[in-house]
């Protein structure tokens, strides 16, 4: 329904990738970098985002405070983009979505963990420094559990309000259900109480 109302714009990366690789494109495609041998930047992808956020000229009220969801940035690294190019793309999205349109961005990126992936680490840390809120989902240190699927660490970074609780870091455990997630404090899962 949101899509019909024009409230949701969805770029299906996998399908678009097939289009750009197997069909000739007249105009620059958001995933143009897949065709280029030395793609330097993600400017076409950013321009797609900016176009999608332009207010539609119709009689209805304009949508305000957009939210950009990116799922997920680590794929762009796997497709050959450099970490700095991806950071530049996010920088420009931030300038448009957060600063110009007063919206929010939610970005998913994978942590390479023990595997020493320098590019991924630069991307992850670079994004962390740009973020106001970091949610880190990880498995339990003790291994798999049927009733507790993992734990979520929440870190607030609000340099513009320095006195607001320096130690704003929380950890919750969670269980994923059919269409929702239930959260509880560490060790307080109903299954173990």
């Amino acid at each position, binding site marked *: 329904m949101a899509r019909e109302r024009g409230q949701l714009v969805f770029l299906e990366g996998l399908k678009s990738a097939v289009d750009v690789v197997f069909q000739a494109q007249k105009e620059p495609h958001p995933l143009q970098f897949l065709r280029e041998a030395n793609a330097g*930047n993600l*400017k076409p992808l*950013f321009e797609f985002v900016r176009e999608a956020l332009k207010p539609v000229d119709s009689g209805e009220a304009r949508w305000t405070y957009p939210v950009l969801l990116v799922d997920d940035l680590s794929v762009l690294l796997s497709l050959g983009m450099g970490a*700095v190019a991806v*950071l*530049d793309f996010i*920088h*420009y999205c931030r*300038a448009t979505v957060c*600063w110009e349109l007063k919206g929010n961005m939610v970005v998913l990126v994978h942590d390479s963990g023990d595997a020493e992936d320098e590019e991924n*680490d*630069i991307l992850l*840390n*670079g994004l*962390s*420094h*740009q973020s106001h809120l*970091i949610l880190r989902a990880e498995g339990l240190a003790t291994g798999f559990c049927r009733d507790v699927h993992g734990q979520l660490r929440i*870190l607030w*970074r609000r*340099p*513009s*309000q*320095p*006195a607001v*609780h*320096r*130690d704003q870091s929380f950890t919750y455990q969670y269980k994923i259900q059919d269409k929702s997630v239930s959260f509880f404090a560490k060790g307080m899962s109903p299954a173990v109480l």
Partner: protein
Amino acid sequence: MLDSLLALGGLVLLRDSVEWEGRSLLKALVKKSALCGEQVHILGCEVSEEEFREGFDSDINNRLVYHDFFRDPLNWSKTEEAFPGGPLGALRAMCKRTDPVPVTIALDSLSWLLLRLPCTTLCQVLHAVSHQDSCPGDSSSVGKVSVLGLLHEELHGPGPVGALSSLAQTEVTLGGTMGQASAHILCRRPRQRPTDQTQWFSILPDFSLDLQEGPSVESQPYSDPHIPPVDPTTHLTFNLHLSKKEREARDSLILPFQFSSENTKSSLLRQQALLRPRPGQATSHIFYEPDAYDDLDQEDPDDDLDI
């Protein structure tokens, strides 16, 4: 020492991390410079001008000269608004100043520049900017220059960080414990040994610097003076201690394989019983059925040892 960081001039590196951000300290030092009457230039690459100016009162904001490289740093919009030459061009332009007024240049952030520019070029420009007040033989007296560079440690390898570190007169590494921030300050004065010091601090909502003694004891998260500490050894279902009788019984116990140094009759009898089983006593046998593939060699493998 934290509040007199800019007195030396030169390059001051603020090394922060994801957990301990450094922008608040950068803003606090910028505010201090502005209040001292210095000219303050901000090269803003990482956050918008509104976000950087947030929290400063109008008096401070009026004294800041903001160079905005956040909106379109790579000139993707192809307008002429971007400063020609980008942030590096703006830095180079600052090398050519002839003002006697002391100036502070804040780079937000140095990491942003280091990720996109060659390290050698950046170091050369930083050196030229931060040392322009100490050029020998220069007749014009250029005011003291301080360059504050915010560096996100996790983004760079040891090479570039080491190069910047060698250029810096002062390095401040942010950290902390128990919610309390600390700054480890390494200061290199000319012709003197480097000094280092750790200063605990907090930044107030108006970006004033509040120096502190150390993490306060009251801030420990789990201690509450109204709840007495619980003794975990009460109400156990097992014994942790021995009674006097139990201790005596334990001390007088003779261990089966411990033989006393005195050759008493009982000790010798025990030894014999253990080491030489009596005939008729059940002894263990080993039955070995060799496989077809086993290579049984009747020679003693230790024959060739010359013992």
